[in-house]
Every structure is written in structure tokens, then in C-alpha cells.
């Protein structure tokens, strides 16, 4: 592929666009108090928030995989007419504003929620203000990313092995478990990584549904939010680490990104 000549018009706008996207991150890194970074990140509340975010997002990702992969499989292989109706609904959280996600979760699982009221009446327990609410929010906002990617992977599996298995009269479950799953490892990994990043970064819905208590529900992004009032340096430090994580995610998906934009 030979390089084509670029016109000045596109180039200028492209440079503006590029700067618009890159400068904020550069600015963030320019503000990070590197000398005190270690002490800021090891403050009790910062550590608690980072640890909570890490384990809750990983747990959320695990749920996303366990439940999302079968959902993606059904979407890929189910009756087209039904699946086409269901798909937009299960993918909706991708474009849902975080506040709407938070309100919806409260409407479902709050003490007076659609399901939450029965749980509360029976047990006196409700999900808001617990760490499980943080995990649940992560699953809600993260799973659609996994489903989106994995369904598409399932749809594009080479058909030879599957046809061979069908000739051998493999059951549908064996087909899924032994043929489709192993061949889709990369797609599942990509989807899981996206779901994890989304769950890790969720802020608005979590604050609405899970509240904010250091050590229990105050996540890393929430800590950034509260530190902007208290100690901007710490807010920059915490933000920078999150930004590095985000860059690492995008970097590790660079092949998928390039393929996505090359066609």
C-alpha cells in the first residue's frame, strides 16, 4: 500500500482534532505532583478506593463473562426475528447516561424497587449502599460491551469445524463448549477487557446506586471527584494512574483498533 498525498485542509483539521483529544491527557500528566505521587497514592482513602475499584471491577467482569458469553451465543445463534428485538435492549446500557443507569438500578433494586421491595420485605436487606451494588453496577454497564464483541466473534467463526462436529452428531452444548468457545478466546478476551475498563471507570451510576463510603462503596473515580475539592494534587495523581490504565487497555487492543478502522 503506497502512501497517498494529503491535502492541507484535511491535515489542518486532523491536527486540531488530534490535539483536542491528546492535549487534555498531556495536561493531566503535566499537573501530576510526581515527587509526592507515592505518598499521595498510598494515603488510606486513596488505597481503599483503588483496591475497591480493582476487586469490584474484576468480579463484575467475571459475572460479565459467565453470563454474557451465553447471552452472546444465543444472540448469535437464536431465532433472528426474536434476537433482533432483544439485542437493542441488552446493548442499551452502552449509550445510557450514567445517571439514567443509576436511576434505573434504584428503580429495580431500591427498597421500593420493582424487585427490591420484595427482597427488602422478606429479608430487611436492600442492595443500595453495599459493595454488591458497586459490582452490580459494573455488570450492568460492562456486560453489553462483552456481548457486543463476543456475539460478533461467534458470528464469524469458520464453519468447517462446526460442520464436521454436526456430522459427528455433537449435541448443541458440545458444539458451544468444545468448538465455539475455544475458537472465540480472543473475542472473549477483548470483550472482557472492554467490560472491565467500563466497570472500573463507572462513576455516576455507582454514586447514585451504591452511595459513597470510604472502604465500602467509594470507588477510585469517586475518590477523584471528592479530592478535587480537597486536594487537587491527589486528584491529579489518582486521575493519572487511571489514565495510564485506560491507555494500557487501548494499547493492548491496538490490533483490534487498527482492524476496526482499516476496512
Amino acid at each position, binding site marked *: 500500500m503506497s502512501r497517498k498525498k494529503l491535502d492541507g485542509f484535511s491535515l489542518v483539521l486532523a491536527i486540531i482534532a488530534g490535539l483536542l483529544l491528546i492535549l487534555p491527557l498531556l495536561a493531566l500528566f503535566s499537573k501530576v505532583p510526581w515527587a509526592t505521587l507515592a505518598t499521595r497514592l498510598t494515603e488510606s482513602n486513596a488505597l481503599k478506593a483503588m483496591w475497591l475499584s480493582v476487586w469490584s471491577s474484576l468480579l463484575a467482569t467475571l459475572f460479565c463473562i459467565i453470563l454474557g458469553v451465553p447471552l452472546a451465543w444465543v444472540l448469535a445463534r437464536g431465532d433472528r426475528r426474536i434476537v433482533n428485538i432483544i439485542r437493542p435492549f441488552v446493548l442499551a446500557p452502552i449509550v445510557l447516561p450514567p445517571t439514567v443507569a443509576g436511576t434505573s438500578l434504584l428503580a429495580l433494586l431500591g427498597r421500593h424497587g420493582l424487585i427490591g421491595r420484595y427482597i427488602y420485605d422478606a429479608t430487611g436487606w436492600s442492595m443500595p449502599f453495599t459493595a454488591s451494588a458497586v459490582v452490580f453496577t459494573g455488570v450492568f454497564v460492562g456486560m453489553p460491551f462483552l456481548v457486543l464483541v463476543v456475539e460478533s466473534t461467534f458470528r464469524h467463526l469458520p464453519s468447517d469445524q462446526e460442520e464436521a462436529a454436526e456430522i459427528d452428531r455433537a449435541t448443541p452444548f458440545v458444539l458451544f463448549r468444545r468448538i465455539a468457545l475455544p475458537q472465540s478466546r480472543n473475542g472473549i478476551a477483548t470483550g472482557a477487557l472492554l467490560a472491565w475498563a467500563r466497570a472500573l471507570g463507572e462513576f455516576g451510576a455507582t454514586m447514585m446506586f451504591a452511595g*459513597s463510603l470510604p472502604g465500602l462503596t467509594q470507588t477510585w473515580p469517586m475518590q477523584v471527584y471528592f479530592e478535587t475539592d480537597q486536594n487537587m494534587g491527589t486528584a491529579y495523581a489518582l486521575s493519572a494512574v487511571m489514565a495510564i490504565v485506560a491507555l494500557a487497555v487501548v494499547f493492548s487492543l491496538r490490533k483490534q*483498533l487498527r482492524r476496526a478502522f482499516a476496512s
Partner: protein
Amino acid sequence: MKHRCRKISIAVAILSLIATPVQASLTQSPNVTLTVFAASSLGETFQTIGKTFERRNPGVKVQFSFLASSNLATQLNADAPADIFASASVLDMDLVRNLMTDVTLFAANRVVLATPRVNRIHLNKIVDLNKRGVKWIQCAHAVPCGAAADAALASQGRVTSKPVSLEAKVSSVVAKLVTGEVDAAIIYHTDYLANRAVLKEIRFADTEAATTHYPIGIVRSTKHQALAKSFVSLVMSSYGRKVLAEAGFGQAK
């Protein structure tokens, strides 16, 4: 074609990873817009006063941003374009004192313990917060309503349970209490009054500890000095005091 769909879907997935919370947007009026940063607890009263101000000054639009005072102070320090700042504590006004002029106290408020009238667990006194299974919330420690809650609880001295959430601003606390997600919350007396149909209040014995004072001031860099002064005058006028008193605010000392 199929291949392409997949690529596009991955691209969409990656692109939409970046979700941004949106701050209150400022709309432009045809003539002059007066921007007022006010403590979350002033929401209803200041909107009432703002409407009166707009009626008395045709062509002027009053634009409010209601957030925790500490949050607003941070924004002001970052050169947020406000003309007036009304804070729920002297502490947060002090954070921006060098940006302000004509600062005066205009109201007082106190925190109370509030609980839904209909609730599974009954709370009748402050120490009932220690009852098993009670979920209660307050504002974050750095926010005025949180600082007042801390002081009030310290004065009471016998509450050993901890809140299940430290919310970013008092209106979030009130919303969660009114929707019944928690059994109790420490909110302002004014917030209780606004929701007395569904809430009951339990007062702290030490009124002084539970009280916070509200200063208002004009941002030095305002382009609407005269209008800003006139808005502050309206807040301080007998009409303004009446609106505030009806909502349950106390007199400024």
C-alpha cells in the same frame, strides 16, 4: 460485509467507553445573564427569589448552579464564570475570599435527623441511629452539611454507628431519604420542612453545634456589578428574608 460489521461494532464499543458526566449547562439569554452559584440547600428559595428578580428586571435572566458549597468554591478558584456566590458555610466562602467583595451573612440553617414517617424501623431520638439494621446517611465531611452533621453528632456524643454513605451534596441525601432508600439522614431543617409530608425530624439538643451560617458575596471580576448588588439586596430585603424564613432558614447573626 460481515467482517466489516464486526470491525465497526468493535470500534463502536471502544469509542463509547468514554462516558462523561455533564455539568449543568448555561443557556444564554437575549440580554443579560446573571450567574449565581448557590449552596445546594438554597435551591428552592433562590429559585423563587430569582424569578422575582427576573420579573423586576426585564431582560435579565438569573442562571443558577446549585452544588455543594465546597464544590462551587473549587470551581470559582478555577475561574468559573459566576457573578454571585452564596455558600452554606463561612469556611467555604473563606476559600474564595480573595475573589469576593461585599460578603455578608444572610441566613442560618441547622441540621436535624430526619426519618420517613412510614418506615420499617422506628426512630424517635438521635441515639436510635445505633439500632440494629438502621441505614443512615449524611453529607461528606468536607461539605457544609457534612461538617454541621459531624459537629452535631459530636455534641450529642452517643452515636456509635456509622453512615452507609457520605453523599456529595445535601440534595442527594434528601433524595435518597425521601425515596425511602435509607432509614434516616442528617439534613437541613429547611429540607425537612420542604418534605414534611413524608418526613419527620428529630432535633439535636445542641442547636449551636448543628447550625451553619450562610454568607453571600459578589465575585470581584463580575461584568454586572450593579445587577449583582441589586440581587444581593433583594436577598437581604424584607421580601428575601420572608422567602427564606418561610422555608425555615434562621436569621443571620
